[in-house]
């Protein structure tokens, strides 16, 4: 063989061996405790993404390693450390909960690896603690309630009652809503949260009735969501005070609510950055295949997780599978050059998506299942409130 041919073959072999080195993605989510229902949705979506990609980003094989945070920050941090130190992952993604993310982010970022959050969006990560290697495929926590406050303004609602659990995310949701809502907040209850969370809202609902509020705004994630909706209906308030919620009514809680026939959920309104009915090709494929494979609609948790894998894959493909140069990978991530299920978006200076937020309503689909659909776009290309605090 001629020297040039040998060189070509050598080059081809070299690139082939680099390109065929598996890129590893660590995915931290909740797989135990009652919150595992969210983790399962994310796990399903991640696996579906891998299926759609054929397990590869271009010609580079991808591998996802799941880890359980047990809904505790120190367990999540330990799981993150294990992914970094034992499994030697190149990317760390996932994180449902703000406190788990905040506990784990230092380990990932200090090690110079990329951290992609697919749900948690606490304000420090969007502001003071923003980092060049940190990206989000979700939103910043405050944006969703801010959008809902705007919705109530447009509807001309003059008074609202606010209920949320008493922890950081709960307070953020209440604060986000109050930031944009122009009416009067006639009552606010931050209920006990934690392992022994308060699930019986009889006292607070009685206060809602007494306050004569025109609308009620709530944030009750997890098991508290269905509990609240049931009691809201049982108290009779569902007939007089319309319900506006964030992160409470979603495709995870709706099947349970439908099973127990709590009609109060139907017709209630919520805001989100994604909906199963969003009209773009990637979303149609995602939702259809998810329904076929797992029965039932995916939730926004799943959509965000699906996008995280797609984002990472797009970056790995852009650098030809060579993740050794972080600057190139970062540029590829920042370009967000992939078909997101929420439609095209760009990254702001703090690496949070500049994206739309939609008003959604709970309806029955053609098969009678309870799900959501988009009513209107509330925010177009919205930048979160903490971007200015980020020094990038």
């Amino acid at each position, binding site marked *: 063989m001629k020297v040039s041919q040998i060189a070509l073959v050598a080059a081809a072999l070299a690139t082939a061996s680099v390109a065929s080195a598996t890129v590893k993605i660590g995915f931290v989510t909740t*797989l*135990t405790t009652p919150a595992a229902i969210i983790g399962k949705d994310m796990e399903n979506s991640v696996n579906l993404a891998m299926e759609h990609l054929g397990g590869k980003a271009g010609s580079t094989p991808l591998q996802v390693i799941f880890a*359980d945070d047990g809904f*505790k*920050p*120190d367990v999540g*941090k*330990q799981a993150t*450390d*294990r992914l970094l*130190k*034992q499994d030697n992952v190149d990317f760390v993604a996932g994180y449902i909960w*703000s*406190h788990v993310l*905040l*506990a784990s*982010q*230092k*380990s990932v970022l200090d090690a110079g690896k990329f951290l992609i959050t697919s749900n948690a969006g*606490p304000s*420090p990560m969007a502001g*003071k*603690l923003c980092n060049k290697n940190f990206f989000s495929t979700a939103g910043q926590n405050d944006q969703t309630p801010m959008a809902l406050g705007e919705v109530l303004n447009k509807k001309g609602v003059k008074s609202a009652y606010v209920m949320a659990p*008493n*922890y*950081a*995310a709960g*307070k953020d949701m209440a604060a986000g809503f109050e930031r944009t809502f122009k009416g009067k907040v006639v009552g606010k209850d931050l209920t006990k*949260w*934690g*392992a022994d969370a308060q699930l019986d809202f009889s006292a607070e609902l009685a206060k809602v009735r007494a306050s004569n509020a025109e609308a009620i705004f709530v944030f009750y994630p997890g098991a508290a969501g269905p509990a609240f909706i049931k009691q809201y209906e049982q108290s009779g308030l569902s007939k007089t005070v319309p319900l506006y919620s964030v992160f409470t009514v979603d495709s995870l809680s709706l099947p349970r609510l439908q099973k127990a026939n709590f009609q109060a959920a139907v017709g209630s309104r919520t805001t989100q950055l994604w909906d199963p009915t969003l009209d773009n090709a990637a979303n149609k494929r995602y939702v259809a295949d998810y329904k076929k494979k797992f029965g039932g609609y995916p939730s926004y948790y799943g959509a965000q997780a699906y996008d995280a894998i797609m984002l990472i894959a797009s970056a790995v493909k852009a650098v030809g599978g060579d993740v050794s140069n972080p600057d190139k990978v970062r540029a590829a991530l920042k370009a967000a050059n992939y078909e997101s299920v929420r439609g095209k978006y760009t990254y702001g200076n703090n690496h949070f998506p500049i994206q739309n937020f939609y008003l959604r309503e709970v309806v029955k689909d053609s098969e009678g299942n309870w799900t959501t659909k988009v009513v209107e776009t509330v925010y177009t290309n919205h930048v979160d409130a903490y971007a200015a605090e980020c020094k990038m």
Partner: protein
Amino acid sequence: MTRSNWITTLVLAALAVVPLGLYYAGQPFWLDIASRLVILAIAAASLNFILGYGGMVSFGHAAYLGLGAYAVGIPVHHSIFGGLDVLGLATSNGWVHLGLGLLVCAVFALITGAVSLRTKGVYFIMITMAFSQMLYYALISISTYGGDDGLTIMSRSELPGLALDDPVQLYALCFVSLLVVLALLRMVVNSRFGQVLQGARGNPQRVTMLGFNIFHYQLVAYVLAAMVAGYAGFLLANFTAYISPEMMDWTRSGELMFMVILGGVAVLVGPVLGAAAFILVEELLSHFTVYWQLPFGLMLMLVVLYSKGGLAQWLRLNQSGPGGGKP
């Protein structure tokens, strides 16, 4: 060497050598596990002092771990984000962290101990738990320090001659601390103070008749144990670089208690065995299944049912029966 000294030395030697060996052999994760193990063993040893030897079953001991950790986190937070420039508290100086942590733990233990030690038995258990829960709820509501989001500790404590960012040096500090704590514990338990304490656990009337004011002895022991746990908290903060109120709620106090009981109460190396068993079994089992708590719970039940003195008895470390004899 007696059998118990032999096994104690073996366990401690293994802790000295194995994690570092694995670290240099390219398995750094085990050093993390070992660090966590040693830190919790220190906290469990402090609990063993009052629970095992002193008979005071405190269900709120994790509060001191938390206080010690926040005593690192809060000054570091202010040194970066400003505020609290009084008394030089906005700093990364390790001595300040240590001093603050020990002081706060001592004060909290003094006040809550003075109230709690007036009760006995299950009432003491519940009231110690109540105090730590009150602290937990109080910390959740202070949003400046993260509330239940927790506090990321951006830089580690600065101590002369030590760079705690280096995991090997951090582990060395933790391990040496464990040795010192165990040595101190043996000294105190065998001293007159320790004898009075143990006597008060077994037969309080007789000890009182001998002219000792049990309340004073128990309160001093309670405060000392709190301070040692606070020191463990200082180490924990430097290890995880994060603290949240959740790390000090009653379930965490329960875990400390379980480590002590599992390892064998009133046995010097018991807490180390208990912490090791807890953490290693949890780590290994969780590799196999996400439902690891089922076999873990079964194991706990079997150990209790078939080994009265916990692991220490299973290793036949306490020939004279649980709770008696020299450590």
